[in-house]
């Protein structure tokens, strides 16, 4: 089964068409990078998939669940990290993760155990008990990634995964993505950082003016700059 399928997906804001009849299919177990210039419609496309925007036309499915007609089932399938990972700054990182787990249906002890498994992923032990208002953008990003991974969803959707991360954390996140897809899961991310897409994605789509204009498999020899040109 495909992880993500869209058909003629369109989003208009007044007379401006942000996403223009996009048809996309991302297979289960695939790592797909959506690249494109600013204002191409990448974030809008993601927001429709995760249920933050209502499409003007077309349809979108997450593991066969229509994001409009069956949003709760669709949302159970993915973890999402926004391009602005700020959330509930009055909570500590560990409280945020606990809240996420509880709202995704885990028991308190399950959440606690899972947080214990995930937190060693990034060097955040010193800050996880502090309020997130004191976090840098990078640390908020790390907590948001951990929140997305908490329930081991089959699909990870990340908008700008490495903005604000230090080189060490970028490498950790990249390897996490690789490890995650090796287990049969799917990753769909949007990025401006072409080397990151080249290193960690298997396939890429180029979005311009609301349309996906190119799709190709990524190899070590793929000229990413040329794809964008």
């Amino acid at each position, binding site marked *: 089964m495909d992880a993500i399928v869209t058909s003629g997906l369109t989003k208009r804001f007044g007379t401006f068409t942000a996403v223009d009849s996009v048809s996309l299919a991302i297979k289960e177990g695939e790592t797909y990078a959506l690249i494109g210039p600013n204002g191409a419609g990448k974030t809008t496309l993601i927001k429709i998939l995760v249920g933050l925007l209502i499409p003007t036309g077309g349809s979108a499915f997450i593991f066969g669940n229509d994001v409009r007609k069956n949003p709760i089932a669709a949302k159970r399938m993915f973890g999402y990290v926004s391009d602005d990972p*700020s959330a509930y700054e009055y909570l500590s990182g560990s409280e945020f993760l606990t*809240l996420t787990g509880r709202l995704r249906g885990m028991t308190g002890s399950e959440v*606690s155990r899972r947080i214990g498994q995930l937190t060693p992923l990034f060097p955040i032990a010193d800050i996880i008990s502090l309020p997130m208002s004191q976090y840098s953008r990078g640390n908020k990003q790390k907590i948001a990634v951990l929140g997305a991974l908490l329930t081991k969803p089959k699909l990870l959707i990340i908008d700008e995964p490495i903005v604000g991360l230090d080189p060490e954390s970028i490498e950790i996140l990249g390897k996490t993505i690789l490890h995650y897809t090796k287990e049969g899961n799917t990753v769909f991310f949007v990025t401006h950082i072409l080397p990151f897409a080249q290193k960690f994605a298997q396939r890429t789509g180029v979005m311009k003016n609301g349309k996906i204009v190119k799709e190709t498999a990524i190899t070590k020899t793929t000229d990413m700059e040329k794809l964008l040109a």
Partner: protein
Amino acid sequence: MDTLGILLWSDWIGVTRWFTTKSAGKFVVVLLFILLFGAISYATWRMSDIFFRSLAIYEQFGAITAAYILHAAVLVVLWLAIGSSVASSVGFLVSPTPTFSYLMTLPVQAKHISRWLYVKSVIANFLLMMFAFVPIAAAYGNAFGAGGIVFIMRVVLVLLCIVCISSGIGMVIALASAAWIRGKEYMAGIAGMGIFFTVMVGLLKTIFPPALSKLYDASALEFLDLFRTLPLNNQGLPTSWLSQTITHGVSLPTLAAAGVTLILIYITLGIHEKRLISVLLRIRSSPHSKKISGTAMNALETTSIPLVVKDWLSIVRVASELGYGLFLVTVAVFFFLFLSFGIGNELRQEIWRVQLTVFSFAWLVFFAIAIYLRFLFPLVAREGRSAWYIFTLPISRTRLLFSKILLSILVSVPIMICSGLVWYWLPFVYVGRDQLVSLTIIVLLFVSLVQVLMGAILPNFSQGNDPEKVSTSGMGILTLFLCGILAFIAGLSIEHLMKSEVSGMVYYALILGSGMTTLFVLWFAANQSMKRWEW
């Protein structure tokens, strides 16, 4: 234009731009605000007018008692203005705006920044205190034939002296305490309110000593003897000079008051200019790390309502929110203390008792609405920058709305209990207490639900980090008016019930009917609009 002029001009641009963008909406907001504050001022004036007129019939005895009460009002307004100035100045120093942070990087002298902040503080305080003080002074003038433009100018002069003094003192207190407060906002808020409240109670006890209540039954000679012992009769008090300016016209005490004001402005501004930058730098350079207790973590792990716990934490962990809540509660407690001490058991006419009961009910609901408007109305909009998170979780939006409703009921419970106690506390309410308590609880419950549902219809997510702006938006003011209408219907019912003009059945049917109908319509609208939210 000099530096101070440029800084004030930039504020003026901000104010004018606020009016010139989306003008129709802003016009409505301003109009509703004017109506709201107009209504509050009118209510204050009406009660003060009745009170001063009742004193005026006692001729010179009434006049000196009224002058005493006006002196008390000057003292109370001065203390309120100092409290307000300290709170706003501390908030500014502890959490400066991005615009001010930018200003700090420019080669602007501290004296210009200090004077700019001072002028802004004076204007804000003047506008705020005007609504409390002018109606009382105007009622005095009306009752004792002292109206006219000269009288108004004297009132404005006195108010200006009060806000100039309080702004200066408030800014200096804030400078002295801000560095200590940072990182301890929660405790500082409680301590600050404790001090404010204790002083307020002390003031009230000073203003209304037991001797005051004996004046009503005293003979002429006894009256004068008793009156001389009242603590505010000391002519050496600067507040006495201010009140005399209103009651007796411009005279030597007026000059003395103006002189003291100028000296205080000079001293406080001097201190502020010297200390402002160093205090700001010290605050920003000190390590700032808040510890969080494990209690909330345990609650999140074990509760079956994690969304409610999360929203509760959004109120109690934000120092500015907690401070505002404490401030409102303190003002409410002070208000009812004032009403209780000031009027005591001296009301013998039934009509006054009814009017004061309705007046107390109106203020009780007003304080509750003010608290709800700040904490319950913005509950949905508060998701703000976190909306990406909550709306992508596998939970239905109806469940989200229910969690907000549940929190609003939980927040309402202590307010309902306190409101119920008020009816047993006020000395002039001695019949129909049970009905008043039940009606107040019903109205407060309706009002809290109206607030949260109205807040869900058009939530302003972009201002989610600033509940003050959310609650003062057009929708917030509309909510205020809707709640006001409900309270008005309830107030009318109380009046008619107390005058035995309606039966208890009619009274409950009217309140329950209007409340249930409103809630039904709002629930439908809120639930539908939840499904349309985009982020």
